[in-house]
């Protein structure tokens, strides 16, 4: 039992690792502020293209979305970060992460938006257009507000997944939360710094996970 505490909950090691881990946390926050808006905007774009009038465009987008949902994000990231340089395209870890996340999370967000937009009745379009709103205004002030409300739990839940996913940036040496914690682990030969990082993830995400359960239950009833 004592060995277990020494190995996983060593407060002394945790307090020494804390400054490094907090630096990592800051990087994670910055990373989230980049990739979440990127995914939300990209997803909207993907959704609109996948609802295009042209059948060819629609199917091409759906194939692309399914492709990026089939490739594990870590594979995509490593391909972009260490495969593309062979073709002369060398990206910094941050750019590589941003690009991989854009492709992956936009596909997931895109599917959610699409479900949301499809859940708004066709009549809403017709009614809005017939009152003189143009296509853009119809989308922005009539369709999307209803669509987003209908799929809000899924949007929030996917955002939690995106935040969790930022941990794979550690694999390409981006010094975010997990990377810093793992560095502290390799110096101290002790898992406590990673447990500390886990605790930080829990503090950030547990309330949101609870919120999702509530939202889902409210939507269901």
């Amino acid at each position, binding site marked *: 039992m004592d060995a277990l505490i020494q190995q996983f909950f060593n407060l002394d090691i945790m307090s020494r690792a804390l400054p490094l881990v907090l630096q990592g946390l800051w990087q994670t926050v910055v990373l989230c502020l980049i990739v979440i808006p990127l995914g939300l905007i990209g997803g909207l774009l993907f959704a609109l293209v996948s609802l295009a009038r042209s059948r060819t465009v629609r199917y091409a987008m759906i194939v692309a979305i399914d492709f990026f949902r089939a490739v594990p994000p870590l594979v995509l990231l490593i391909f972009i970060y260490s495969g593309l340089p062979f073709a002369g395209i060398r990206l910094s870890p941050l750019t590589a992460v941003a690009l991989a996340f854009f492709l992956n999370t936009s596909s997931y967000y895109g599917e959610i938006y699409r479900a949301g937009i499809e859940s708004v009745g066709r009549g809403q379009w017709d009614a809005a257009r017939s009152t003189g709103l143009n296509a853009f205004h119809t989308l922005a002030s009539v369709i999307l507000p209803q669509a987003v409300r209908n799929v809000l739990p899924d949007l929030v839940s996917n955002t*939690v997944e995106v935040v969790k996913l930022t941990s794979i940036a550690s694999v390409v040496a981006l010094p975010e939360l997990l990377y810093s914690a793992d560095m502290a682990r390799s110096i101290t030969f002790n898992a406590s710094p990673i447990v500390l990082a886990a605790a930080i993830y829990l503090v950030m995400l547990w309330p949101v996970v609870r919120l999702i359960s509530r939202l889902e239950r409210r939507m269901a009833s």
Partner: protein
Amino acid sequence: MNAFLETFFKPNLIAQYWPDILKGILVTIEIALAVVICGLLLGLLLAVIRSFQVKAVNTLIVIFVDMFRALPPLVIVLIVYFGLPNVGINIPSFAVLWLVLTLVLAAFAEEIFWAGILSVPKGQWEAARSTGFGFLGTLGYIVLPQAVRITVPPITNRTVAITKNTALGMVIGVPEILSQATSAQSFSGNATPLMMGALAYVILFIPVVALGRYLETRFAWRRS
């Protein structure tokens, strides 16, 4: 165009590394199947236990489920992989990956199955009980068949998303597709093996992603 082919689809490298990638594919399939079967069964079991409404037990289940939904899988993998040997527990890296992903899938599956059970109207319970079914009979024959049916699309999508995390095995040296591909890449100094690995994932997972899409439109019971 030629340079592109030389970089990503070099024929002699494809021939050379094909057996390695294939080995990786087999490892990925083995771990993925074990994760899917164990994770879904454990998730269903937890949801059934939760329906007995024993307060202390349910609190524990909710804590387990919330924790594994909130923590990044890679974080749990690293804690287990680097932490356990130091307290005298040695488990091979593929088992670490299997265990962690099974628990993550179980957590998500429990939540979805539980939502499914809750969505079955109370009248179904009452009607079944009044015809003489016991609690377990009602659950097994009346409630679960309806609950599981609604949960098929979300469970499929979630299962695919979690199974894809087998690629995290690369970080702890499980010889699955991605680690075969990256080590072949560093040996050959060419991106071809990486492309092969990525394509292997696409071939493995596109059918299930497409199945999920189909189930979503076809099977989902419309809630209005």
